[in-house]
């Protein structure tokens, strides 16, 4: 195998792409609910908007559109994190998330663009079950995953530019440059025969961790990047052991029956899944935020599309687990929004903005809701 081919298509520990997808999707869901939802009220004010790209034309996203897109993306993302991801669902998460920030300059947080790039990589990750990645206790299963290498190289390019702009501004640049180098070689640690490389590689992960701990920011960007560094640079043995412990319930409880074909039970499963798909978004009706119901209903429709294909192509219990994961994600949305200050902040900032514009009726309405949801 030529060096370049070996670099992109060589083996990596499958535990890494498995845990990386789950980690990023989970953080993304909670990031949406806790950090983006509270800012939703500013969308559509005065019928004014400038999008990131001219493709949106004169489209003005309102609060319900923005929150709907967030609900759709986050619920689908969390459902994919808790049960085996599906390529179509991941593509929809990537599209939804990207739509969420591209539709308006009101969301110009630089790392959202990076998360979109990551989600794009995830679409091409191997769709691994817990058993495929962690079934063997003696050695970590390995396989080719070029999209994982692309993920690492994407991160390396980001750090490279951080270093380059810092150098151009006369600021210290060695730490981001070291991070860039670390991510370039990170994917090689699982295939290296040299003991020194296997032992030394995890220490390279300290670079990104130190960089984000030393660079203060109010957003969740350090949470993403420190977690990603943990998964990418952890020693093969440790990441495998941690993954085995985390997926132990999934590997022991979620055993599918492998017989294939269409039978009566399959159709019963299908109708049961349909009932579940209707029930799951119903939870979001209790959230009392504009657009969330629609977003959750759309995520259920997306899931129907995913499981509708799976019902005839894969083991038959999988659709039920998918519906359960969607229900769990809708429930998580409800619990997070109702137990945090996200909803209060949404209505409070909405009331302040409306008052500033002189729309006292809307301000009073939103203030009343803010008081109702004060925590």
């Amino acid at each position, binding site marked *: 195998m030529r060096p370049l*081919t070996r670099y*992109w*298509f060589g083996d990596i520990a*499958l535990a890494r792409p498995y845990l990386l997808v789950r980690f990023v999707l989970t953080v993304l869901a909670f990031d949406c609910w806790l950090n983006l939802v509270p800012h939703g009220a*500013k969308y559509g*004010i*005065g*019928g*004014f*908007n*400038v999008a*990131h790209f001219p493709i949106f034309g004169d489209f003005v996203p309102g609060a319900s559109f923005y929150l709907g897109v967030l609900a759709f993306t986050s619920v689908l993302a969390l459902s994919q994190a808790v049960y085996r991801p599906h390529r179509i669902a991941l593509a929809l998460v990537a599209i939804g998330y990207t739509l969420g920030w591209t539709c308006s*300059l*009101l969301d*110009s947080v*630089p*790392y959202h*663009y990076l998360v979109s*790039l990551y989600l794009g990589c995830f679409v*091409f990750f*191997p769709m*691994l*079950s817990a*058993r*495929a990645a962690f*079934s*063997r206790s003696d050695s970590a*299963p*390995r*396989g*080719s*995953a*070029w999209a994982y290498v*692309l993920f690492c*190289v*994407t991160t390396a*390019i*980001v750090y490279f*530019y*951080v270093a380059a*702009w810092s150098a151009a501004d006369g600021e210290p640049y060695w730490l981001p440059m070291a991070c860039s180098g670390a991510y370039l070689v990170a994917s090689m640690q699982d295939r290296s025969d040299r003991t020194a490389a296997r032992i030394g590689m995890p220490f390279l992960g300290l670079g990104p961790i130190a960089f984000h701990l030393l*660079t203060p*920011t*109010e*957003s969740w*960007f350090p949470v993403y990047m420190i977690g990603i560094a943990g998964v990418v640079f952890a020693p093969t043995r440790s990441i495998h052991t941690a993954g085995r412990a985390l997926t132990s319930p999934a590997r022991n409880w979620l*055993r*599918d029956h*492998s017989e294939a074909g269409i039978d009566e039970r399959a159709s019963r499963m299908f109708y049961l899944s349909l009932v579940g798909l209707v029930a799951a978004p119903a939870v979001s009706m209790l959230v009392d935020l504009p657009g969330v119901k629609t977003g959750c209903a759309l995520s259920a429709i997306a899931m129907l599309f995913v499981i509708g294909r799976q019902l005839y192509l894969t083991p038959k219990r999988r659709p039920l687990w998918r519906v359960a994961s969607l229900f769990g994600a809708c429930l998580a949305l409800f619990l997070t929004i109702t137990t945090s200050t996200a909803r209060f902040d949404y209505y409070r900032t909405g009331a302040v*903005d409306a008052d*500033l*514009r*002189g729309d006292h009726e809307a301000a009073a309405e939103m203030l009343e809701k803010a008081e109702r949801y004060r925590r």
Partner: protein
Amino acid sequence: MRSVETEPPPPQPSPRHRRRSGLFIGAVILLQFAVPLTYLTREDTADDRFTWRTFSAPSEPICEPSASLETFDGQREELALEKLIHRDWIDYVSRNRRAVVDAFLKKQCETKNVLEVELTNRCGDERGVHEYRLRCGGERSYEATRTAAR
């Protein structure tokens, strides 16, 4: 009988798959390197999106914006920005973000009987005063800058 305990790892990609993936990887990497470099050619230096120059909100001090419009009957009317657009947009405008300034001026031109809209940013530093003027019906606003030295 197939074991429920283990599943095989994904198969090694075929040469054809590698070729196709290689092309895709090459295109993506090229794009990722090229996009941040576009900053060097951007007309609007306040626009540093997709460049990885910063990961937090811009810390650049903002200017003091004010806006007015002139109607066809020659009357000039001051605009209260905070009543028209959200304060985040006002922040963009006060940082001389050209795309937002242009969109704002165009939006005000949609009001009936408006001949011209003007937006002025007074920055208390070397950036001086930026004046943007759009004759309604025109495509792009005219920008005039008066620095503190003048």
